[in-house]
């Protein structure tokens, strides 16, 4: 058997001719990743490979945090996990962070469509030197969670808005808000005590963190999504016999990305429903007219400019990348950001 070669690998594997795949789910076991994605994927992998590959899932980030997935997977701390592109802005993941920009994509499914092609073109070759890149996925679109109603761009003037990264900072300034850097852990307290007035957040995530409690005014904007890329340890993949490698590449890896995207789509519907109920009587769930949304879109532009500068300083052709993205969006019949 060609697969059972080195001494260390035999420990890593489940037994003669079988392979153990270790998954790090950095979300809790109660999170929709667990029941909608990782558990079904485990079943699928074990069924399709006839039990030759067994999947061991560790929940709650017990094998590592989301902030170090790239290093951890390439270093072999575990075999598979989900990399949030924006956490690795300074690495080969950078091209994927175009998806974080304001109004790049309206939702998860659209992001996946376009980012797959975009990533193939700009990122995967370099990433494949250290990890196996699976097809990308993305979160639901971020809405505005606010302590007072936001019905137009003017309503944001002078409000303290939480920012986490550079392009967000540029966007908030363009919107006329005052950027406040605050960790995710402190966001709830921050909203509750008025340290910030507003934060962008995913509706699905906000159901869990309860941001609607201190910030019951939710403006549905789908401002941006967060691209995420499932990745696999290279040694694990290369240690598999060819037929299994083929099966992962053709079937199992795309299935994982699909499970993530489907989970976001179904959970989003439930989340919006839940949020509407949660704020009724205490706040408001606000839908904007297209003309108002377009005002927000226009103001997203400075964030794109900051990104282009970064791309150029990293040796990419930022303008070209944005042109490519817009072309891909148009070809697929999606709206362009601005």
């Amino acid at each position, binding site marked *: 058997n060609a697969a059972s070669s080195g001494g260390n690998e035999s420990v890593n594997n489940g037994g003669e001719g079988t392979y153990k795949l270790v998954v790090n789910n950095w979300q809790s076991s109660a999170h929709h990743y667990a029941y909608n994605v990782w558990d079904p994927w485990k079943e699928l992998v074990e069924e399709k490979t006839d039990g030759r590959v067994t999947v061991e899932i560790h929940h709650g980030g017990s094998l590592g945090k989301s902030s170090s997935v790239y290093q951890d997977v390439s270093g072999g701390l575990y075999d598979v996990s989900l990399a949030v592109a924006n956490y690795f*802005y*300074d*690495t080969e993941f950078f091209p994927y962070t175009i998806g974080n920009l304001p109004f790049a994509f309206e939702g998860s499914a659209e992001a996946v469509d376009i980012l797959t092609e975009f990533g193939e073109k700009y990122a995967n070759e370099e990433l494949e030197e250290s990890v196996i890149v699976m097809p990308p996925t993305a979160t639901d679109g971020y809405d505005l969670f606010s302590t007072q109603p936001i019905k137009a761009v003017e309503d944001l003037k002078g409000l303290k808005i939480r920012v*986490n*990264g550079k392009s967000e*900072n540029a966007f908030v300034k363009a919107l006329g808000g005052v*950027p*406040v850097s*605050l*960790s995710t852990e402190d966001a709830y307290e921050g909203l509750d005590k008025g340290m910030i007035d507003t934060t962008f957040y995913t509706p699905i995530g906000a159901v869990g963190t309860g941001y609607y409690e201190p910030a019951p005014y939710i403006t549905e904007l789908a401002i941006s999504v967060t691209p995420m890329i499932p990745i696999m340890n290279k040694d694990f993949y290369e240690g598999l016999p060819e037929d299994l490698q083929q099966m992962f590449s053709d079937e199992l890896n795309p299935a994982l990305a699909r499970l993530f995207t489907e989970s976001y789509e179904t959970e989003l519907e439930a989340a919006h429903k839940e949020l509407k109920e949660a704020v009724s009587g205490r706040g408001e769930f606000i839908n904007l007219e297209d003309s108002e949304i377009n005002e927000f879109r226009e103001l997203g532009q400075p964030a794109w400019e900051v990104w282009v500068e970064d791309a150029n300083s990293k040796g990419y052709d930022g303008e070209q990348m944005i042109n490519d993205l817009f072309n891909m969006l148009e070809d697929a019949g999606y709206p362009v950001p601005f």
Partner: protein
Amino acid sequence: MIFLAKVINTLSNLLRSIALLTMAFMMFFITAAVFSRLLFTPIIGDVEVIQLGMVVLIMCGLAYTHQVNGHISIEFIVKKFPNKAQYLINILAQLLTLIATLVVTFIYIEVAFNHKNHMHLSTGLLEIPYYPFDFIIVLGFLMWGLEALLKLIYSIMELFTSKTIDG
């Protein structure tokens, strides 16, 4: 030997001074950030500054903590052992500390150069690169190890002195 001790102590004291300055800086900086947010405008990236301050504070404190025997251990069993056994265990403690810290030092040298030359990680808002702080981690663990080396040498010397007294 005296020269070695001098070099190690000078370096440890330098790290300690850096740690104390960082600690004082963090106290004033957090206050300034709060007042600035309340009275003027929020300081962008204050969270990152504090995070990096923590790296410096922790790493520059490790060696000092070892120097003053501050790394906590469970002594109540060992205290009942005969003197010579206690010396031997102390030698083992210093040796294990030396080995463990040198392993970490070695690993982090590679990390630092990787972050300097290839994976250019930096903070999200202020874009402060990680690698200088990686080198501080290297220095912190190295000095912790060297403090252990110094104590290892002293323990071995004490063991010999105690032998001559006993013998």
